[in-house]
């Protein structure tokens, strides 16, 4: 899922300080799981902002709401009535959600309360790690099910750089060396020799490097007439 983190209160406050009435929208999917933008976080942020603004002698009326997902028009449209009452929207969605609100809800400014960080999962409650590189051409089976693009700091495909310290990446002792993980896993699977194969230079054009992505499923697209 998409993992995001809330911006500092001061930064958010400065974004919306000039408005009088703001809609704070949470998202019930990824950012709820990573505890950054769900219904609970909306409540906490609204309370915190009210207090922070009051300390500056300001007051903003916040309308608090959370929708199932900010990345699907059907859910975003549920906000149309509320939008008529406010001057700006503060979105606790990921970057996708913020953009969807901005596109769908008319000429109303939308501000991001979160910083979208990476694709990953909760390793344990309260700890989220990046695991997928979204390269567009998945070869996880060649690496024992561990992604070298996301989990190796240098995205190496042919083995470790030799800079690891006790199985931790040289750039951060909190991060395991992706290649140590891959080697350990392949060893468990009894397939360490897969590493002997030279992986050629990767075609990065299947990812963002090839331009902003777009996928069309003709069998799924609704016809325009007679819908």
């Amino acid at each position: 899922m998409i993992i995001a983190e809330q911006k500092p209160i001061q930064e958010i406050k400065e974004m919306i300080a000039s408005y009088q009435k703001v809609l704070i929208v949470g998202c019930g999917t990824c950012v709820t799981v990573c505890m950054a933008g769900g219904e609970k976080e909306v409540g906490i942020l609204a309370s915190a902002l009210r207090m922070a603004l009051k300390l500056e002698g300001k007051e903003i009326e916040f309308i608090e709401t959370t929708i199932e997902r900010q990345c699907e028009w059907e859910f975003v449209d549920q906000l149309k009535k509320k939008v008529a009452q406010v001057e700006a929207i503060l979105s606790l969605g990921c970057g996708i959600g913020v953009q969807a609100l901005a596109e769908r809800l008319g000429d109303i400014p939308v501000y991001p309360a979160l910083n979208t960080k990476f694709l990953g999962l909760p390793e344990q409650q309260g700890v989220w790690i990046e695991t997928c590189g979204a390269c567009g051409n998945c070869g996880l089976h060649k690496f024992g099910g561990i992604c070298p693009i996301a989990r190796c700091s240098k995205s190496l495909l042919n083995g470790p750089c030799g800079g690891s310290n006790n199985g931790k990446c040289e750039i951060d002792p909190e991060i395991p060396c992706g290649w140590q993980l891959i080697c350990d896993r392949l060893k468990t699977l009894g397939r360490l020799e897969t590493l002997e194969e030279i992986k050629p230079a990767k075609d990065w054009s299947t990812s963002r490097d090839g331009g902003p992505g777009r996928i069309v499923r003709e069998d799924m697209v609704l016809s325009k007439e007679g819908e």
Partner: protein
Amino acid sequence: MRAGSNLEKILEAGKFAVTGELGPPKNADGEVIRKKAEILKGYVDAVNVTDNQTAIVRMSSVAASSILVQLDLEPVMQMVTRDRNRIAAQSDILGASALGIKNLLCLTGDHQKFGNETGAKNVYDLDSIQLLAAVKGMRDDKRLIGGEEIKDGEPKIFIGAASSPFADPTEIRILRLAKKIKAGADFIQTQAIYDLDRFEEWMKEVRDKELDKKTHILVGLIPLKSFGMARYMNNNVAGVSVPEELMKRVKDADDPKKEGIKICVEAINRVKEIEGVHGVHIMAIEWESAVPQIVEEAGLLPRPEI
């Protein structure tokens, strides 16, 4: 002959090779390189020129290597994959060859987090093995990575790679060396070695796989300057272990630098006798003045001229 470089000729002739290293300056002053070159000339067969080492912005290794070519001191140009994609890398290889640079060491490079531009965008389009394969492809198949033919002027490069015998994960250290050789490494320079017993064990494994016959291995050595340095290298540099007795020697010495040089010379004398070792790579960074003394005391003078 792949490139006909001095280093290549010496290794192919079965002679024991000596390479040095210098780091380009953090400014645009070529004079720094000239000064360092003057110290090393005549004492080494080729000099490695680092490429923005530890991700710190320095004069480019192509430029610095080109200056060495003009000074008639053969460079081993280092190229990291951290900063350039395959277009820039292949372009630099063509340019380097055009400037008379004949040796290239292919590396991944330290992550930019270590350097002075931590906000830089990651490139790592290629890893070191893919870079090795790329240079080999340009030289031998006269083709770019993407397949297009290089007409009337392919680069002639003697290709090198780095090896860290004691780095994690230890189970695949030999596999990794074999992979680099298969990808195209004509010569290998190792990470700094201090534990010679352990190194001899590694060399045995290398010989068992006959890898010493497929490439030229040069042992990396860094002369110790002080106990502090020895301890730092042991604790902080991945893949480097300094045995207790060496640390003690430097600590107890009246003149630690002198002892460090002595230890380095002893190491050279020992690795000279190890089957499969074809030379040494002396990395006396910011202590280039130690190199002439080390080379002389190890009985490696005069350097062969082929």
